[in-house]
């Protein structure tokens, strides 16, 4: 064995140790962040004259008490994780795309229209709307992507404008062309039976609410995106552009194309989330079906620091709080909105980078002196 390889193994071990330490610190930071945010919520509940222990025990144990609640958790986690993923990819290329909302609407619309209008045999009837939704989402993502990559237009403004347009067009279609004739409430006709994502209940034999195989689709997407980001050229390029755009360009990467790809991939995943909402949840198009989901997807991505594998954890964690918050409200009269407050505190703590850096520096210093 030559000296070179010895040094190499030594280096590699050193590198791995550093990475492990970094990971441990990151996980520790995430846990600390969540703890602090929960503490803030605790104090707020106390200050508004409610019993925080009772409220928190309802919120934190409620979702697991019945299988239908677990189902609600799984369903919500599927949508939120997909949205988190859709945001994480452009964020990784350091593109601040706030366009998940428009992509979600586009996906929901495409999935809904295809699933309502086009008659198809089983299995195909699920696949085609899903693909249509991903295509619509990708196309919606491409618009701000091209504007940013080729023209240098501000992607924040472009995506916000597209959101405003998408909401209104969706609203118009659901109120007009697609509205089910004769119904008093505003919604479209139901999707065809074969187009619904098969429920998980048939597999596990327990009632799981609306949880469906979208969950498996989501997990597949997670793995696919993780592989894409870590094992493929385009993933490498996206990471390079995000890390240092000038250097990426100097290294021969076609930066505009990479930026466009990050938007398109993100858009396709958001479109998939839209398909899940329609084919797996509502079963038809309704006004306001997206709600504030898109911004919550941003939170999930932030909490996970844009790492696809961590996004799943963050998505499950966050939807657990959401479902728990609803249960807490039913049982203890504490508003479920406290969850949004907790979430906001998490975002602010995560983005206040000087805080963990101060903490990390301190850790490193103690290690050096020891």
């Amino acid at each position, binding site marked *: 064995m030559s000296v070179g390889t010895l040094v190499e193994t030594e280096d590699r071990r050193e590198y791995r140790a550093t990475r492990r330490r970094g990971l441990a610190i990151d996980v520790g930071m995430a846990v600390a962040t969540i703890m602090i945010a929960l503490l803030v919520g605790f104090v707020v509940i106390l200050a508004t004259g409610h019993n925080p222990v009772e409220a928190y025990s309802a919120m934190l144990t409620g979702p697991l008490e019945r299988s239908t609640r677990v189902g609600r958790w799984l369903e919500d986690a599927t949508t939120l994780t997909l949205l988190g993923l859709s945001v994480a990819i452009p964020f990784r290329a350091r593109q601040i795309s706030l366009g998940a909302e428009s992509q979600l609407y586009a996906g929901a619309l495409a999935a809904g229209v295809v699933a309502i209008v086009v008659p198809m045999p089983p299995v195909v009837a699920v696949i085609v709307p899903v693909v249509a939704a991903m295509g619509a989402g990708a196309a919606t993502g491409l618009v701000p992507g091209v504007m940013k990559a080729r023209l240098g*237009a501000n992607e924040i403004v472009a995506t916000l404008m597209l959101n405003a347009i998408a909401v209104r067009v969706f609203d118009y279609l659901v109120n007009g062309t697609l509205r089910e004739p004769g119904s008093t409430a505003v919604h479209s006709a139901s999707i065809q039976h074969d187009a619904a994502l098969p429920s998980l209940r048939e597999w596990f034999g327990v009632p799981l609410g609306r949880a469906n195989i979208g969950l498996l689709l989501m997990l597949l997407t997670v793995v696919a995106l993780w592989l894409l980001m870590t094992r493929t050229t385009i993933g490498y390029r996206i990471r390079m552009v995000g890390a240092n755009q000038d250097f990426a360009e100097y290294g021969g990467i076609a930066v505009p194309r990479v930026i466009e790809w990050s938007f398109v991939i993100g858009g396709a995943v958001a479109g998939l989330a839209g398909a899940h909402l329609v084919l797996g949840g509502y079963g038809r198009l309704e006004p306001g079906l997206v709600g504030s989901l898109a911004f919550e997807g941003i939170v999930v991505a*932030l909490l996970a620091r844009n790492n696809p594998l961590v996004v799943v954890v963050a998505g499950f964690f966050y939807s657990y709080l959401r479902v728990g918050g609803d249960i807490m409200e039913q049982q203890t009269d504490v508003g479920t909105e406290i969850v949004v407050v907790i979430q*906001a505190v998490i975002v602010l703590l995560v983005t206040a*980078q000087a805080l963990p850096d101060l903490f990390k520096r301190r850790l490193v210093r103690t290690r050096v002196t020891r």
Partner: protein
Amino acid sequence: MNAVVGVVFSSAFLAAVMRVATPYLLAAFGGLIAERVGVSNIALEGQMLAAACTGALVAGHQGSVALGAVSGIAVAALLGLLLAALRLHLGADVIIAGIGLNLLASGGTAYAVFALLGDKGGTSGLQSGSLPRLHLWGVERIPVLGEILSGQNIVTYLAFLAAPVVAWLLYRTRFGFHLRAVGEAPDAARSVGIPVRRVQCLGLALSGALAGLAGVFLSMGYVSFFVRDMTAGRGFIALAAVFLGGLRPWGVFLAALAFGAAEALAVQVGTLDIPPQLVSTIPYVLTLGALATYAYRRRRRSNAEPSRA
């Protein structure tokens, strides 16, 4: 088509434009000041919402509309300061911090209303009153103009006055000069002794206060209650007006006015056979087009330099 033209040139419509444009104008000027001091204020939406909620709650509990309005504006200004603190002292990403503040406002207001009043929807059960309308003596008697200009809410007049005031502030005062210097070249500003952080903090507080006035108008202008998430994306639209207006006071004024006009038009044509949702997309489509054109021209102009997307 004639019906549409008839609507557009009616004095009721023009009065409605002034009313609808008010929150856009104020929030957009808030966004403009923040942008010029070099910190994007994505939190306009949340600041409006927090101010609207605080205003209605305080006015309802204390029985004083003025006190409500002042507390609303103060809360929004504090949120501006919080954004400044996060950005300047804790190294936060200003966009993400803004998103966080928006969430905080959305959750916090809904939670507060539910906790205090036990109502999920808003504060309609609370008698909070609204800010007075002004009847301009003299103007009122001018035939058509009087109907448009007189009898508007006091905040509407403030919003239209804000354009010359902000222009004067930015270009004619020492503070405005410092503000622009800090926004364009913080290091250079620091080197000539301008207190960069203090100017940024003040700028963001002012930005928040303007957004706060916009929010107060929503809950205490023509209605006298707060509704959950009543800003409905207006803060983001105002932000778009800032960019569409080319970061200049009068440009921003025109852009915000155009957004207001389009929304008023959408409401008015709702009675005709034209889908209001599609009419209300017009300003956003135009903004998107303007954004692309503007960026394209800027790119062509600076083609000699290496491109930085």
